[in-house]
């Protein structure tokens, strides 16, 4: 039910079509000639967010050339991220740091949330449709079709990403820009081949293993809490429990361009003005 899809681009095109969506452009990682995934400024230690950003970049470049997106479309373009693995590397790093009593890097804070890399892509390409993050790649196209049919978006950038927790060389992702088939029927440009598909032709399919098995046998019944039992409410804090008031430090992320600069302990380059990068 929640097993990851084989992230082969032609399969993704079929699945989009099954959900009534036409693919306008596609990007994928890795392609045949790809080496290491480029770093994504402001995101550390895990390949997940760079994977999502790079794949999205390829898809959007195939459609628009360079950022930003066409304003008339960007405003109505949703961003959908579906991943069964999620950013498992960041989760493990944080758990390890907590268990070891080690310092947790402040940058891990916002990257531990799937929305953050979507925010990066949205800012860079000026996409202001809804954001959606799902835990199963199988949900991606049905949920996208539902969202568009509901009316808060006309198109969607759908990114399917799977991180291999042991081997970054086996990370894989596909990004497609989709719109409903009915819209396409009235579209002026009649080219049926999604932009960027030619780059994928040489990429061999990758084997996929589910990261977990859905249990088939009986599962032990949950121990439900007693809803009738009153819960002792947390008491007011005593003076010894109150933190010594300290000057609050703002979240250590520098301001976007139209705000005055604030002091930051950690340098996070402004994603909107980040250089175009050196991806293929």
């Amino acid at each position, binding site marked *: 039910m929640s097993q990851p899809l084989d992230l082969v681009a032609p399969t993704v095109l079929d699945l989009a079509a099954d959900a009534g969506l036409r693919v306008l452009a596609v990007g994928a990682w890795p392609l045949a000639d790809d080496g290491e995934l480029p770093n994504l400024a402001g995101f550390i230690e895990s390949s997940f967010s760079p994977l999502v950003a790079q794949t999205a970049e390829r898809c959007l470049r195939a459609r628009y050339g360079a950022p930003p997106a066409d304003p008339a479309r960007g405003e109505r373009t949703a961003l959908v991220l579906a991943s069964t693995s999620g950013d498992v590397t960041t989760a493990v790093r*944080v758990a390890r740091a907590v268990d070891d009593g080690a310092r947790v890097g402040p940058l891990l804070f916002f990257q531990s949330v799937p929305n953050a890399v*979507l925010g990066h892509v949205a*800012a860079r390409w000026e996409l202001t449709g809804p954001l959606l993050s799902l835990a199963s790649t199988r949900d991606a196209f049905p949920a996208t079709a539902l969202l568009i049919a509901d009316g808060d978006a006309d198109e969607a950038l759908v990114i399917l990403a799977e991180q291999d927790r042991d081997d970054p060389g086996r990370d894989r992702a596909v990004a497609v820009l989709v719109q409903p088939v009915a819209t396409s029927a009235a579209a002026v440009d009649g080219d049926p081949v999604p932009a960027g598909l030619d780059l994928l032709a040489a990429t061999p399919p990758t084997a996929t293993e589910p990261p977990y098995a859905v249990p088939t046998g009986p599962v032990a019944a949950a121990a439900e809490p007693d809803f009738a039992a009153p819960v002792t409410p947390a008491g007011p804090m005593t003076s010894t429990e109150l933190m010594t008031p300290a000057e609050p430090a703002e979240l250590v992320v520098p301001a976007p361009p139209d705000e005055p600069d604030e002091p930051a302990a950690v340098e996070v380059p402004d994603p909107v003005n980040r250089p175009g990068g050196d991806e293929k």
Partner: protein
Amino acid sequence: MIPHPPAYHRPADHRPVDVVVTGVSATTAWGRGAEATLDAAVRGEPAFATVRRFDVGGRRVKVAATLPGQPDLDDELTGTINDAWHRAGLTARHREGVPLLLAVHGDPAGARAAEPVTGAGRLAAQLAGRSGFGDARAYTSACVAASTAVADAAAMLRQGLADRVMVAAGYLVDADQFALFDAGRALAADGQLRPFSAGRKGLLLGDGVAAVVLETDRAARQRDAPVLARLAGWGRAGDGYHVCRPRPDGTGLARAVEAALKRGGISADQVGYVNAHGSGTPHSDAAEAAGLRLALGPAADRIPVSSTKSVHGQALEASGLVELVVTVLALNRGVLPVNAGFLGPDAACALDLIVDGPRSVRPEYALSVNVAFGGANTALLVGAA
């Protein structure tokens, strides 16, 4: 798999389907069932206290709003779902084929498993299977995960893909998220979450588990179900601005609110209460106030606003659903919750904040607003039953 709408079909009957709420339950540090949380919100009494659930010795801030002991997320979700389902007057046999939309961060033990996983999808699948529901879908978009699930449920019902949907969400304060928020300097060093207040210093985490049964009006009437409220509208939009900061002028949030009002077919001056996102974060509250003023126009001067995070904390993926439940119950009870922790007005947050005590009002409509990293914005419009 939850079905998707057929390619762009326009229903023959153009009357929109009404979406109604028939059962709710919510668990926070104030207890289970939801009444205890509403009571505390009406009193304006915060639940923040020193964390005992895990070691906070190395943290700058050591405070959150938690249930006692070591509650289990699966157990709490199961219990909350059962409670909401029961309150809706439904039995086990009604669950077959009903979709379960679940907002969660992931499996709390997943990162430490022998084969680590994030595990949100698996958690949802197992919960649905064990509870007798149909297919499950897990939403992981942080602080808008729950409200997004509600909007999707409403869309499914309106598009005729289901008659009944169970939406659930859960977050229990844990060491890893606490460490991340503390490292990011997001937690309030003075131990209070002060939405829209002068001197606000950040957010505090809180336990939140909630469940809401949504149905079509017709399905509810067919079984004479109690209707607690209507989900009259919903809206979603993105800021396209930054990885974690909201757009300061609030335009993304305003678009989400406007979409909700439009779906509901009402104007801003018909809104009688806003349950704000109000995380107590300096820049985020100001951006939200700007967005609300933009969307609500002159009516913003007199629409009462409160953020109940001030009493139950920021419950991350579950917050949107806890707050929806509180909003529905407040409308039914005819009393609006207090915006607790208030020290004084901030000119950047010029709203009609409920600070002197609860207000005995029974609005026709209320908004519940949520915002998340990446510039995600959602607005849910609740209509009195």
